[in-house]
């Protein structure tokens, strides 16, 4: 197509996902600073390292979109891993193991979802509670031991298709599916509707509870999938898996411009958020900085993102207000 069209499309894309240029600048800058950084292998590295975060973050995005929050991701990650490593399960054929783990994720999400939808307990508290329960349960399953995974279960961590590592493929699939469901299915639209105005949703007779449950189940399932890829790469299950992970995931989602008030945000942004976060981390490893600096940088990035997002929503509202009036029916 002709250049101007491309330009306008680019501009539109940037306006929709302001994180896109940020990521590009970040990558270019780091490549300039460290020549090994630009290597294909390294970029693949980043992609692989980002994939569990991407997967978990998409699930979290759905929850946050309903004006909820899920603090139990890290613990779900651990419990899923624990179940995967349990003797009884690990013995099964690979497919069966994955099925069991995903089922576990669904059930955990279901517990969260039912609790949030049917008791009036705020999501923050529900998931705060389940966060502890799931980790405790995981402790039971593993007996707080380090357990190696059988080689067959590490496949999805190390395998590759046409040079693209399995985790990356998985993450890409999840991201695309997540975006499609959010924009193009009634469930997705209802998720945004419920987050946008629970009252209106009830007045309109939407299946509010169903939608809530659905969102949390999605988060649980994706946490389990993330756990599969993560543990497959780690090759073993330690009691410390997923500790504090919830905050990283939430950071990624918020970084992606989804507001914690619910109703506004995008899956694409979430994916970008996860990628930016991982790139920053890798960049810091390259620069040999200490992990505390990493924390500081991560906090700074998050803060910047939030401020930017706040400003952006204001401008959008302004623009829409003026045009919204003008557009003839």
């Amino acid at each position, binding site marked *: 197509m002709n250049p101007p069209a491309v330009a306008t499309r680019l501009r539109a894309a940037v306006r929709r996902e302001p994180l896109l240029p940020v990521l590009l600048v970040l990558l270019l800058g780091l490549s300039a600073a460290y020549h090994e950084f630009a290597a294909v292998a390294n970029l693949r590295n980043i992609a692989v390292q980002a994939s569990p975060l991407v997967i978990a973050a998409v699930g979290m995005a759905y929850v946050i979109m309903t004006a909820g929050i899920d603090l139990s991701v890290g613990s779900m990650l651990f419990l899923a891993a624990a179940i995967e490593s349990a003797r009884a399960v690990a013995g099964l054929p690979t497919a069966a193991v994955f099925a069991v783990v995903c089922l576990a994720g669904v059930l955990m999400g279901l517990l969260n979802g039912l609790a949030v939808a049917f008791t009036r307990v705020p999501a923050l508290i529900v998931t705060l509670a389940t966060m502890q329960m799931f980790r405790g349960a995981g402790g039971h399953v593993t007996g707080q*031991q380090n357990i190696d995974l059988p080689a067959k279960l590490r496949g999805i961590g190390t395998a590759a298709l046409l040079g693209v590592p399995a985790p990356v493929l998985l993450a890409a699939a999840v991201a695309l599916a997540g975006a499609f469901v959010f924009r193009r299915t009634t469930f997705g639209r209802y998720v945004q509707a419920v987050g946008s105005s629970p009252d209106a949703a009830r007045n309109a007779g939407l299946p509010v509870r169903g939608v809530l449950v659905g969102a949390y189940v999605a988060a649980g399932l994706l946490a389990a999938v993330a756990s599969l890829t993560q543990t497959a790469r780690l090759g073993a299950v330690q009691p*410390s898996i997923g500790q504090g992970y919830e905050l990283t995931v939430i950071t990624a989602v918020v970084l992606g411009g989804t507001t914690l008030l619910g109703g506004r945000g995008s899956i694409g942004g979430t994916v970008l958020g996860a990628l930016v976060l991982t790139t920053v981390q890798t960049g810091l*490893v390259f620069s040999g900085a200490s992990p505390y600096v990493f924390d500081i940088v991560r906090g700074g990035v998050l803060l910047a993102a939030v401020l930017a997002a706040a400003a952006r929503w204001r401008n959008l509202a302004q623009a829409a207000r003026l045009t919204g009036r003008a557009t003839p029916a």
Partner: protein
Amino acid sequence: SSTGGSDAANGSGSGKKRTIGVSFDLLNAIRQAEKAAIQKAADAAGYSVEFAVADQDAQKQASQIQDLIQTKKVSAVIVIAQDGQQIAASASLAKARNVPFLAIDRAVADQANVTFQITGDPVADGKAVAAEFLAAAKTAPLKVLELVGGLTDQNAIGRRDGFNAALAGQPGVTIVSQVPTDWNPAQALDGTSNALQKDPTINAIYVPSDFLLPSVQSALTAAGRLAPIGDPKHVFLVTIDGDQNGCKAMQAKTLDADIATPVDEFGKQSIAAVTTALGGQPVAPKAVQAKGLTLNQANYATTSSQVWGCAS
């Protein structure tokens, strides 16, 4: 005499079996081994054990010790401190209630109120690792990736410093990159992959604890560098602790050496010290540093039986 003691304690059906309170900072593979060691020794000596875990929360540990001493009225406490400094308050509490206070594995800064302490010797362990590297370097020069544990953990610091000190100015071994892991497997994995990425000529890795080994191995696998000893692609690996991962890797001949922590010593000596202290005698020596046991391919057959990880 310990058996006799136990007979006395168990035999007299008075049920007045003395209880030892144990508070760990956290629970993982090596802690499980230490717990088992204490339990074993305690059973032998006829004590029952009250076990608590503080989930890496210094205040929670203080509370647990308080509950053990004041409410559960245990006869002695054995502690793996979450923080060697902050445990002081609990120690002084024990002193006040004159309950013997024993520290294992992690050193306690203020020894005043500590009845007995047995820890590993992180610096020595680091040196032992360095020794293995130097031996290997005789055949071919090593370019080393050094992983570092939690930067707030004395053990991690000791293992790093011992290693670096022993290698300082030695030809043949060069540390090309140091990666902080914060004792976090995922961070170890990513850090290792990134380092291998940054410098493909790395041919040796120092892993400061066995529980990071699986992460390192899968990073190597991903980089196509996980090969048994003798294979030109092989990366020279040495770790500390000696848990199951380590032993498996030794058998698989992918791990060159492992400095095993003498957890059984921790159990035996601390319980012995409890008995002495309860008997009213002073414990001497007050502080013991138990060197790690070097397990390498050369001595594997003879030594592996004494390594806790290989026992199971």
